[in-house]
């Protein structure tokens, strides 16, 4: 296995080890306000990720919005096959954590350094909750010349 290009420490973490494509948002997240829970696409008009599918992604959000819905909604989207692989939050709220644990989706809170300033959507990352780290495995492919 190749060494990670970069490591991020997180304060709190739960769930399985996962790796996948990072999606970086500078705006917070609520499954109720922002997500079409039947397609897995961010549907709130004007959201920084509007039109993007969260399926199988590793989602980076600075904050959580709302909301009680995540308690059931993460389990529901997992059942529908449109769940992300992990939620990475700067600051979250308990329902996101309860919902992610209930649905067996990896979740972390608190980070150093701030990945939103460093990572780009499309980078490939691994989340290791037991070690409380996120590893950057490779940068996204540059656009074809």
């Amino acid at each position: 296995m190749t060494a990670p290009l970069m490591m991020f420490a997180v304060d709190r973490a739960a769930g399985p080890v996962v790796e996948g494509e990072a999606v970086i948002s500078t705006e917070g997240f609520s499954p109720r306000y922002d997500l079409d829970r039947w397609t897995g696409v961010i549907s709130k008009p004007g959201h920084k990720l509007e039109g993007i599918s969260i399926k199988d992604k590793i989602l980076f959000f600075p904050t959580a919005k709302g909301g009680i819905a995540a308690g059931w909604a993460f389990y529901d989207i997992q059942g529908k096959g449109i769940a992300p692989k992990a939620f990475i939050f700067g600051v979250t709220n308990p329902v996101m954590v309860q919902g992610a644990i209930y649905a067996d989706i990896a979740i972390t809170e608190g980070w150093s350094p701030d990945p939103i300033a460093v990572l780009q959507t499309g980078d490939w990352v691994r989340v290791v909750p037991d070690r409380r780290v996120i590893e950057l495995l490779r940068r996204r492919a540059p656009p074809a010349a």
Partner: protein
Amino acid sequence: MQLSSDEQAMLSGERGAAVKEAIEFQIQVGTFFGAQRFVPISNAHMMGDIEVMGDVGLARLEKMAREGTHCAVGITTNARCIDFAHAKALEQVDEEVEKERRIIASLRKMNVITADTCINYQTLYQPHLGEHVAWGDTGTVIYANSVFGARTNFEGGPSALASAITGRTPEYGFHLDAVRRGNFVVELDVDPSDYADWGAIGRLVGEPHQSYYAVPVFTGPGRTPIRRSPTSDELKHLGASLASYGSHAMFHMVGVTPEAPTVETALGGNTPTDMMKITRADIDKVYRGYDLKDGRCNLVVFSAPQLSLFELKRISELLDGRTVASGSRLFVTTSNAMKRAASELGYIGRIEAAGGTVLEGVCFYILQNLTPMKQKMGWTSLVTNSAKLVNTITAHRFNTILRRTEDCIQTALTGDVK
């Protein structure tokens, strides 16, 4: 986490598989947040409807009910997504309506009171200062923490249910003194005169301080106590908006809420991270900030949270002898109990005579089939006096506009929004 002998017994399976599963889940959540122990709770309030839990949630709930899962403390349900009397007229999907009935049956079997209300704090259960409960939705949580001085985190449906099964919750977040202290100050240099004003304040404060751990301390000008003591419904709209825009679970209001006799007590030694002042001009700017499109609007909603008897009375008076514009819809949502009482008092009759629709046991933004309903009905803009609704319904792509109660009524009567 340190476990008592009782909790050890639950974990070992001595109290049955359902209790074991519930406490295992709670331990994982508690461990994430670094909780040292559990605290006993005396009441729980849970969200559980087909719109949010879907088929897999229903299957899990039915399995729990079949296996004899039993809630050990009083637990009530939050607003749901179907008012059975109106499901056909709203063209909600028959199959989903049937699933909603199955959810209700399963919950009742597990000793849950299916009260279907998001204003339990006004109508069902008023916890005392320091009482630990496990509540969701967020509007119920912020009211419990702030106005009653009770202690709860945001609890999602499965988590609130687990708390009722085990009779306890992990001690983290707003169960702890340190988290409950205020950490920024908001001077209200304004006398809010409508629920929409209070909701606008919630947006102005919550949006720039988006964090579960941000706890605003409201004061009057120059850190004086609040000039006019707000009503329960005003605090309800403020809290619901703060919880929605800011993900806040608690606020203090000096001279009003029980943990804020003074600014200093509310801050509990914290140095405020921010000082804000809100004036009438700030609130008016919120109202001016909405896109009115072509100035027409055929949908007016009073909901989120459900309306109290006082709010229903006011809406009925404003609509008395008038008629909702042709082609427009006016919806009001309330609890089953409030609708019964308001019917007895003639309020519901007056609203319906004007052409309004009163839904019970639901909240508008969680209605089953809302996106197709919106398309079918030709709804684009939505006018409401609820700042929370303006924020929560956005995934369904409504163009939402916050207006004062009387202005909302005018829109319903004329089809114009100003």
